[in-house]
């Protein structure tokens, strides 16, 4: 199973990243921290599940130095949703204990993060939104509930009770969230806190509840346990606080001797959501300056965050003295073995998180256990995790047709299980549609998906790849395969009724095969990533292009994860871009394009001249080969878009599940 260990080809060694570090009395084996996040893995009864035990254990097994589990709510009013664990319930202790034992068993340390959701709730209609003052919560348009001093005492006491449950469960420390959501940040925020009593006004007053919480939690901890704080360094809201204020608050808390470390964080759940769970469009390591600025002001250890997915990058941050510890959430979701691989020099073997938001956040917003488009084992660690891929009992000769992600993933898993694999690819590069997707700026890191798979295939001598060869039924049958996997993908086309020399499919544009000019009309039937993606591509690469974007949906990219949609709309509206939602395409003539408003029932005719119309429309599975082979081979399977055109995640997941069953 690719046991090959390579030396690091770069002139970089991860001396600092893999040096031990002590936070107070808790010694970490290295500097890699699995940051806390919503997993949606709790039961609907708000109790932690066995799934979560395996999930955290896997990250410890993969080599992380510190796991920060959570975020755990401290009361029912403090839950963002029922799928958040309520740590004030003593019934959490047995499962928590299993988690901490498993994590310790793998040599890592574990802290638990506690929070009160305050004005941030995911349910609709929004229940009581506990907040310092009554204001409108931006993301939901719901009025908050101003908490009384008695309710503040309840909050403080619920932190203390929850902390005692974590102590009894064997956690090494506790982190208090003053982060992108939650009531403790709300008290610091000028948007939320308009109080005139002792809990609002000055910095000391705004931080009073935080000081009370930290003091109460400290009293509930065993002496050797660590107490830390994760703080939003900049709200990035017009009426929010900024970096200087966050630094001042942290220094104030440090001077009171209340915390042993600080972990940085940014953004809110409103207009700056993209900095909270930064998508691919946000640069890697964008938040280094936040930990760097903080580190120059405080003496306690600082944890960095913000699209860190690479050991070289992580080592650099440490060498530059811009943080003491490196926080990662999504990178370790995507590849829990990233620390172990880095340590043994297998840098190319790391499957890097591309911050697509499709798997983890995509499920989270549906209150479903988070997943990863590249790593089907997330949430299924027991069955698909580290060490579960076993050699096949019967070694088969497997022919795979199509070297897109589905075909590559099937080849990787079948190859690692010892089957003899022959992969046909008709083009001169592997990757299929990824080769188009990666041309779209906000999706460019998708190239990592195929880079990783290609690297895995290179390390498998039992996987043969025939490039530039379009397999036919005859060539496949000539190989006398035990099993055939058809992964021939799909094709996007221009519907026949709109065929015209100036009309192109989005694929023709992304392939660079279309003369689209500078006056471009786009019609996006689907409102998914490719529609606004092709708009971004044109805006970026056709200097000065005018883009008119029509879609039957209510907004451009209506079905794109809102983090990506937000970043795209920011970028597009900075260019010559105008959106026309709720329009259907009626017809194309030599001089005009006719659209039809779904509700106004009126036509909008473009006849002021245009260079091209780009249609993001229907696709069709390339399934002829599958039909030709039906009944002619012992085992015939189809994976990926050859089944039905869908997303990368399902192609990878389907291929992995199939290849494990062969």
């Amino acid at each position, binding site marked *: 199973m690719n046991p090959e260990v390579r030396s690091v080809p770069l002139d970089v060694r991860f001396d600092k990243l893999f040096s031990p570090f002590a936070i107070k009395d808790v010694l970490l084996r290295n500097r890699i921290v699995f940051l806390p996040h919503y997993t949606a893995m709790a039961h609907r009864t708000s109790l932690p599940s066995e799934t979560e035990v395996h999930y955290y254990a896997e990250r410890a097994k993969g080599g992380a130095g510190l796991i920060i589990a959570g975020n755990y709510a401290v009361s029912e009013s403090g839950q963002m949703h029922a799928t958040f664990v309520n740590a004030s319930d003593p019934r959490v202790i047995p499962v928590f204990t299993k988690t901490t034992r498993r994590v310790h068993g793998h040599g890592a340390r574990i802290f638990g993060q506690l929070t009160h959701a305050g004005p941030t709730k995911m349910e609709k209609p929004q229940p009581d939104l506990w907040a310092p003052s009554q204001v409108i919560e931006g993301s939901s348009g719901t009025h908050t509930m101003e908490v009384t001093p008695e309710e503040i005492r309840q909050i403080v006491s619920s932190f203390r009770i929850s902390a005692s449950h974590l102590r009894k469960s064997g956690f090494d420390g506790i982190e208090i969230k003053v982060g992108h959501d939650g009531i403790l940040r709300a008290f610091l925020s000028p948007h939320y806190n308009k109080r005139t009593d002792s809990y609002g006004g000055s910095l000391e007053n705004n931080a009073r509840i935080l000081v009370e919480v930290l003091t109460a939690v400290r009293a509930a901890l065993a002496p050797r346990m660590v107490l830390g704080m994760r703080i939003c360094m900049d709200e*990035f809201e017009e009426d929010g606080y900024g970096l200087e204020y966050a630094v001042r608050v942290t220094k104030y808390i440090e001077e009171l001797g209340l915390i042993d470390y600080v972990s940085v964080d940014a953004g809110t759940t409103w207009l700056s959501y993209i900095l909270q769970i930064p998508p691919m*469009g946000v640069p890697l390591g964008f938040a280094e*300056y936040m930990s*760097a600025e903080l580190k120059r002001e405080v003496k306690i250890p600082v944890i960095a965050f913000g699209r860190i997915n690479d050991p070289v990058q992580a080592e650099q941050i440490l060498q530059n*003295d*811009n943080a003491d510890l490196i926080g990662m959430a999504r990178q370790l979701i995507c590849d829990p073995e990233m620390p172990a691989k880095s340590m043994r020099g297998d840098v190319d073997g790391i499957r890097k998180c591309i911050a697509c938001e499709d798997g983890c956040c995509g499920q989270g917003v549906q209150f479903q256990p988070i997943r990863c488009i590249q790593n089907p084992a997330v949430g299924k660690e027991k069955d698909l995790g580290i060490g579960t891929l076993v050699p096949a009992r019967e070694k088969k000769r497997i022919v795979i047709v199509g070297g897109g992600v589905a075909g590559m993933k099937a080849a990787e898993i079948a190859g690692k299980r010892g089957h003899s694999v022959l992969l046909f690819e008709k083009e001169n590069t592997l990757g299929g549609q990824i080769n188009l997707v990666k041309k779209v700026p906000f999706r460019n890191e998708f190239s990592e998906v195929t880079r990783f798979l290609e690297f895995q295939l290179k390390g498998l001598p039992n996987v043969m790849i025939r490039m530039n060869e379009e397999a036919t039924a005859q060539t496949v049958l000539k190989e006398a395969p035990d099993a055939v996997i058809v992964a021939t993908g799909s094709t996007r086309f221009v519907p026949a009724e709109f065929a015209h020399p100036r009309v192109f499919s989005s694929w023709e544009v992304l392939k660079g095969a279309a003369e689209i000019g500078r006056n471009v009309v786009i019609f996006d039937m689907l409102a998914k990533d490719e529609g606004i993606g092709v708009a971004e591509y044109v805006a970026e690469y056709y200097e000065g292009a005018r883009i008119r974007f029509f879609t039957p949906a209510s907004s451009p990219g209506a079905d794109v994860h809102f983090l990506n949609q937000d970043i795209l709309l920011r970028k597009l509206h900075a260019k010559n871009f105008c959106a026309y939602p709720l329009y259907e395409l009626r017809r194309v003539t030599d001089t005009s394009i006719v659209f039809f408003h779904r509700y106004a029932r009126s036509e909008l005719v473009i006849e002021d001249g245009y260079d091209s119309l780009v249609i993001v429309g229907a696709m069709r599975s390339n399934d002829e080969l599958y039909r030709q082979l039906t009944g002619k081979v012992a085992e015939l399977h189809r994976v990926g878009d050859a089944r039905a055109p869908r997303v990368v995640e399902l192609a990878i997941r389907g291929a992995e599940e199939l290849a494990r069953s062969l």
Partner: protein
Amino acid sequence: MSDIIVCVKQVPNTTNIKLDPVHHTLVREGVPAVMNPFDEVALHAALECKSRFGVRVGVLTMGPPQAEEMLLTCLGRGADDAFLLTDRRLAGSDTLATARALHAAIRSTSYRTVFCGQETADSSTGHLGPSLAEMFHVPQATSVTKILAMNDSRIQVQVELERTMQALEMQLPVVVSFAKENWKWDEGVRSPKAGRVQRMSLEDIGLTEDMVGLEGSPTTVVDIDIDMDSLNYLVVDSGLPAYERIGSVLRGGIQENKNRVIHNSLTEDALESLLTLLR
């Protein structure tokens, strides 16, 4: 042939510069010291002249007694003489007082041509070379990267400007200030018979207390802060409105930060003294 004396200085070896907020000076305690990288270039060039043209090379530093270690290294590398100007009364000297002291020290030796680093890694004023040239009333060149040729009366130097390169010829003696270049000493090379470091005090160079130290220094640093360009991370200007701040993050940050400026001001006294000097 004009013998060459190289002015060298010890600077803190760290990227994490700490500032004393009260005295507006660098915190040097507990920070390892190295030779100013610009001075390394000057020394290297002088030693090349020694092997190519047979001149004698001396080194001079003004600093605390522990700077002797650096001078011994210079002797090991092939310098013929080493002078340590060390005196408590020199503490607090600004660039003018420093130039005055070095000028007097050099005058007390037989050396007349001066090589120095164009600036120091810890203060970067670039004042020293030009000040010495004025005091000696000799020609000078700055931003020099190489000595091209030298004989009994003249020297040719290579000067690198932003986009062009110049070759200058000057009448000896001269003061040459060297720009930083990327190269490394071959640490294996050591001169077998290294000389001794000669110490000098204020009396030895014929100056009085009022001409150096704080008293002899017209410059007052009113404020000092870390230059954002020297930081190894990009900064987002916290003075921008939120929407633009996010845009700045998306573009990878910007270097400029409106809230932080270097205050490099001179008092009127200092300006007047400089003008008198440069008359």
